[in-house]
């Protein structure tokens, strides 16, 4: 029997990304912005596959695909070729999907790329096998669940929306690596401005998982990074258990039920489905010129890896801080805007990475809806530096800034909510305490530990706003004075 803890996990991913930033669908002029529209209102004869209609390629989609290919370090094909992939399903209007295929005589838009990730501080390369451009099918909609629905409804609004299919080599060794890879991939796509991964359905993953020497299982249609990690973790446990029991892992396709947190068998995969690929005769191969590619490359924005490098150089951040910021693009943008007015970059980064991010999550705020006066954060940090605010106060004020509506300086002024650092004032308070508690003063003169009691009394009198350090200094110097004068 195998010692299951030593089994090597092999994971490969197939990611379908909608290019949601495209205005129109892949092969027709219908608007691609189908979300929250009435079913079957965003369709035309072409994306409905009506008899006699023909596809024409959306040039912008090709540009975006090339940008993605370049960002994933791929070789880009010199020809744009489409094939038909046949299968019968009601949401597929033509009963074939126009896609791309790798094989003799065929070429996908790009292949042989890689993505660099960092796992537990160690760098790792995840190879990209290929990138395809293809059309999204429509959707089968059920009333309630698939089992109870009295009929199936079909919505073709999504039909024809541009998808990129990104396929990795089986280079990932754990669910965590899969997650880290996906986070990086999504960040890259976001930086390219080709998709909004936050939109429902914009991003779907099929995950292949196996143990070395055992059958491969495919988990279909996982909708979020978190679910990918969970599904893979579940699958590892399930498969380990089977192997430990001396069983065989069936080659099959499974479905991830995110509500129940389990995978369910869909169909066995002993026989590969025959998609009867052949070149789409309606879309003759188009040459992709070097000039076209160069033009796209020239317009590429700064990508995550470059930005991480720059953050490390320009702001002297370590790789960890730079990476966390950069992979949350909006946070990195926020950082850079604040950094224009505030140059203790590490302190700024820490505030954003830890407390700020935590509150954003806590309040469940979509960063796109974040209406924030950046200067508030800068002011907060400055008042902290000047000793006006304590760490504790900073942490209390931050969520109020995020929720909006307060100006830190005004708030501090009007509420008196500052650390008391006014030495003259504190001296008066200390004198008062000394007058009121001669016994305690006597103790403190004899026993240095009793000083804390006096500090406590001052803090109480100032409602906790006094700077304890300063209070201690004042008390000690007054006690010294008393000793030296012998009074």
């Amino acid at each position: 029997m195998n010692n299951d803890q030593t089994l090597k996990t092999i994971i490969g991913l197939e990611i379908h990304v909608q290019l949601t930033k495209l205005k129109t669908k892949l092969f027709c002029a219908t608007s691609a912005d189908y979300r929250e529209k009435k079913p079957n209102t965003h369709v035309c004869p072409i994306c409905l596959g009506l008899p006699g209609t023909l596809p024409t390629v959306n040039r912008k989609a090709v540009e975006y695909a090339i940008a993605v290919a370049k960002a994933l370090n791929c070789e880009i094909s010199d020809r744009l070729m489409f094939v038909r992939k046949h299968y019968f399903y009601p949401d597929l209007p033509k009963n074939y999907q126009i896609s791309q295929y790798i094989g003799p005589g065929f070429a996908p838009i790009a292949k042989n790329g890689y993505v660099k990730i960092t796992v537990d501080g160690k760098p790792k390369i995840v190879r990209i096998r290929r990138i395809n451009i293809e059309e999204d099918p429509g959707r089968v909609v059920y009333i309630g669940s698939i089992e109870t629905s009295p009929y199936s409804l079909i919505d073709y609004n999504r039909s024809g929306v541009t998808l990129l299919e990104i396929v990795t080599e089986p280079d990932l060794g754990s669910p965590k690596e899969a997650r880290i890879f996906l986070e990086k991939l999504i960040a890259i796509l976001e930086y390219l401005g080709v998709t909004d991964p936050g939109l429902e359905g914009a991003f779907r993953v099929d995950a292949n998982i196996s143990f070395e020497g055992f059958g491969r299982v495919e988990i279909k249609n996982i909708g979020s990074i978190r679910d990918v990690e969970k599904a893979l973790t579940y699958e590892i446990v399930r498969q380990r258990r089977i192997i430990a029991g001396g069983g065989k892992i069936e080659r099959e396709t499974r479905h991830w039920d995110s509500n129940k947190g389990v995978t369910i068998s869909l169909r066995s995969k002993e026989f590969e489905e025959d998609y009867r690929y052949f070149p789409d005769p309606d879309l003759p191969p188009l040459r992709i010129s070097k000039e076209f590619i160069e033009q796209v490359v020239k317009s590429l924005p700064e990508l995550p890896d470059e930005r991480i490098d720059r953050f490390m150089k320009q702001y002297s951040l370590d790789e960890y801080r730079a990476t966390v910021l950069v992979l949350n693009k909006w946070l990195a943008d926020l950082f850079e805007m604040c950094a224009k007015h505030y140059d203790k970059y590490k302190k700024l980064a820490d505030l954003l990475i830890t407390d700020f991010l935590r509150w954003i999550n806590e309040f469940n705020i979509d960063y796109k809806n974040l209406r924030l006066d950046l200067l508030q954060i800068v002011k907060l940090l400055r008042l902290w530096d000047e000793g006006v605010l304590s760490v504790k106060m900073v942490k209390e004020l931050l969520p109020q800034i995020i929720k909006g509506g307060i100006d830190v300086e005004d708030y501090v002024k009007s509420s008196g909510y500052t650390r008391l650092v006014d030495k003259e004032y504190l001296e008066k308070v200390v004198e008062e305490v000394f007058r009121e508690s001669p016994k305690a003063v006597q103790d403190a003169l004899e026993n240095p530990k009793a000083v804390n009691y006096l500090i406590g009394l001052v803090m109480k009198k100032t409602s906790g706003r006094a700077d304890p350090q300063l209070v201690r200094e004042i008390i000690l110097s007054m006690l010294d004075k008393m000793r030296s004068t012998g009074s």
Partner: protein
Amino acid sequence: MSKYLSMPIHKLIEEFKTDPSKTFDYLDSLYDNIKRVENKIRSFITIIPQETLDRYVENLIKENKHRIDNLKLFGIPIAVKDNISTKGIRTTCASKMLENYVPPYNATVVEKILREGGIIIGKTNMDEFAMGSTTETSAFYPTKNPWDTTRVPGGSSGGSATALASGEAPLALGSDTGGSIRNPASFCGVYGLKPTYGLVSRYGLIAYASSMDQIGPMARNVVDLAILLSVIAGHDPRDSTSVPFVQSVDYVQELYKLHHKEPKLRIGVIKEFFEGSEEPVKKATAKAVDLLCSYHECQEISLPFSKQIIAAYYIIAMAEASSNLARFDGVRYGMKIDFTNRSWDEAFTEVRTKGFGYEVRKRIAIGAYILSAGYRDMYYIRALKLRRVLKERFDQIFKGYDIVVSPTMPILPPRLGEFFEDPLRIYLADVNTVAANLVGIPAISIPVDFYNGLPIGLQAMAKQFSEPLLLYIAKQLEDRTGFRDILAQL
């Protein structure tokens, strides 16, 4: 019979332009004729009622008062094959599957015709989904040859050819995947042109085999043919296979230019295609070739592998057909069956079994087999190779010759039902026509003679975009044989 019925459209248009109200007289005589002959031959699946067309023409005249002279087809009725989409008019492909399908859009060619003032008079019968060579596989009824109603009109554009030959329409559109325009043109004694692949937009043509399908004009004389070609040819951004550099060409002018210059051409006569023809066909077409050769420079040439050409054609056509017809599953259009308690696969299977005729089911099944893993290389890929070889062979031929000629069909029109017993024979009858589709070159069928009252056609092919040369040759023959504007007596 009205003098109008056999009048060429360029003369009709002159009459209409001087007095637009004559259009109504014309429609009267046309509909009278349709009433008289339609039952005997059944050219149409859908005929637009005369009242509807009268109203349409009224508006047409009102709206175009000042530009009638600029409209190339003003007031001319056109019979359109029923696999070409017409907005608001049922388009069935002669199939039960699309019996009640009314397209919400017009094919590009239809748009172009309407823009030039043309009128759609009806949708013509055809072989189901253009699969057949006799118009007998129509799911509705077969069309009959107007020259002998016991015989087939040829196919698959049989209805368009018979509508012309019997005077039901002066112009028609057909589609040609392996000879579907030229075959019925030959059997019915009319002119039919399959244009260069990519010259005429396929947008709106319900696909049979996309890499070979081509819409083309059919007419009773060469000038009319050239007029309709001028209207429908030209780049269409909605069709990625449409050739981008083709601007609109006035084929009538091109034809007249050549006709006046009368250049001497080098003509290749395909030996095998003559040898393989029935005696009367061989004789009639050889006589026509002699007419051409009395002026041009002729030479016999060889195209040896005709059996392989047929095989490659059917393999590619069926493979593409199996894919193109996959969308007909009863979900969005087509037959409705009760899906309750059935899996998708069961429901689809039932719809497709009931909705498609035997010939279509056979071709889909063979096509799916051809594309399936393990067989693709053996059949499909080899057919593509042969297609390439054939292209090279034609490139070579056109270095030495301007056009090549052969009989259009190796046989006379068969009797109805005759071919059902021997399907392979009908596939082989396409031997002369399929090469032009595989290679993408233009080809024309020119009626040249009769034998026992049955028309016989000569086919001429030329290199890509040489339509003017084909029209020129056709016009020369037309002038010498007097084969123009002839109507079958019914």
